[in-house]
């Protein structure tokens, strides 16, 4: 099966099996098969197996969709979960208040994932990761203002950040707020909130002003620190911890969904 540009190659035979040839190419393959009985036999068998596989799976395709896969039911279950989570988070809810009602979800509709600029998110992730490495090992002064003065802490950080900031309650994941600090970040100020679990493991939530269009989560791993970062409405957010990606993701998603779920619940109720 070697030769000039018109020679039949294996790709042609596969396309023939899949019924994806037409015109001259189809005629050429048919002519070739007419002359090569052994190849023809093999191609016919492959066609038959392809058809058999489709046939065996036809009944599955035709089955009615079971109720648990109805989108309305899945959406309702999601809302219930989010509300439960929001309920559990109670008082100090995780929300960065980003303009009521509209929500991030609506704001992000149509965002082109491939075209969004990666750079600002990466910068936020790097800043967050650096801040994490600097302060998470700190024994004497891990935070500037501790959680006992939470109201003062948040008021202070919100003023410096130019954004109303509420501390996420990560108690659901076993993390309690230790406190926070102000840092230089980008062209302005950045806020770092630090959390600790019963085992002394720490994670941080980092927020600063950031340029660039809204993005999806970006994951970054630096040394021991994993970071999920995203940008929304002029601010960059990052959640950093010495956790494997799959453990950190639900925490980052909870921050994100807590907000989306809350506005959703408000709208529905």
């Amino acid at each position, binding site marked *: 099966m070697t030769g000039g540009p018109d020679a039949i190659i*294996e*790709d042609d*035979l*596969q*396309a023939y*099996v*899949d019924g*994806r040839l037409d015109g001259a190419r189809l005629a050429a393959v048919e002519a070739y098969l007419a002359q090569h009985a052994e190849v023809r036999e*093999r191609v016919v*068998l*492959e066609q*038959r*197996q*392809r*058809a*058999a*596989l*489709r046939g*065996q*799976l036809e*009944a*599955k*395709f*035709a*089955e009615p*969709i*079971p109720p*648990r*896969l*109805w*989108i*309305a039911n*899945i*959406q309702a279950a*999601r809302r219930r979960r989010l509300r439960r989570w929001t309920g559990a988070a109670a008082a100090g809810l995780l929300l960065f208040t980003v303009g009521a009602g509209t929500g*991030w*979800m*609506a704001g*992000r*509709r*149509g*965002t*082109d*994932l*491939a075209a969004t600029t990666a750079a600002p998110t990466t910068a936020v992730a790097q800043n967050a990761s650096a801040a994490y490495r600097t302060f998470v090992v700190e024994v004497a002064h891990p935070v500037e203002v501790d959680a006992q003065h939470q109201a003062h802490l948040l008021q202070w950080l919100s003023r410096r950040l130019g954004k109303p900031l509420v501390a996420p309650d990560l108690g659901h994941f076993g993390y309690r707020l230790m406190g926070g600090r102000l840092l230089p970040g980008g062209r302005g100020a950045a806020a770092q909130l630090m959390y600790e679990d019963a085992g002394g493991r720490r994670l941080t939530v980092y927020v600063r002003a950031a340029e660039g269009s809204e993005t*999806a989560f970006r994951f970054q791993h630096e040394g021991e620190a994993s970071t999920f970062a995203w940008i929304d409405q002029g601010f960059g957010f990052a959640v950093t911890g010495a956790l494997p990606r799959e453990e950190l993701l639900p925490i980052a*998603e909870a921050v994100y*969904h807590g907000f989306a779920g809350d506005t959703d619940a408000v709208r529905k109720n």
Partner: protein
Amino acid sequence: MADASALLEPQIPALRRYAYALLRDHDLADDLVQDTLERALSRWAFRRDDGDLRAWLFAIQRNLYVSRWRQRRRRGTPVALDEAPLPGVAPRQEATMEVHDVLAALDQLPEEQKSLLLLVGVEDFSYDDAARLLGMPVGTVMSRLSRARQRLRAIVETGRTTLLRRVK
């Protein structure tokens, strides 16, 4: 998210078919599809409006299967080829036997070849779409497709010989 339902629901039968072919268990397959739909809804806003929804959903489901479900399945009880139910099959004629257990034979292929045969041969994805979905160049799709079909032929052939020997 009002339009999610209208857009997603027509895709579900094909997602169930792909999931079932991968897992060969009706309940587990629906678990996988449910995971896929939940994931799709949570990422709904990040989806490209101009993108191919079907390819996006299949990519999500395939990734979920590869990252989580394959292990779960391996821990389960494997169904022996002989015990696997073969719906609507009367193994009387040679021609029937030759092809009747393609789905079971498919099970013996590595996941990538299995997905390739399903996405191209059953779900009718173009070679280009399949390449994007599986994260490989289209040339690789072609050569692996050829190899997958070759292996499938060999497996079915071996199965047939075993079956004939047992009948004698």
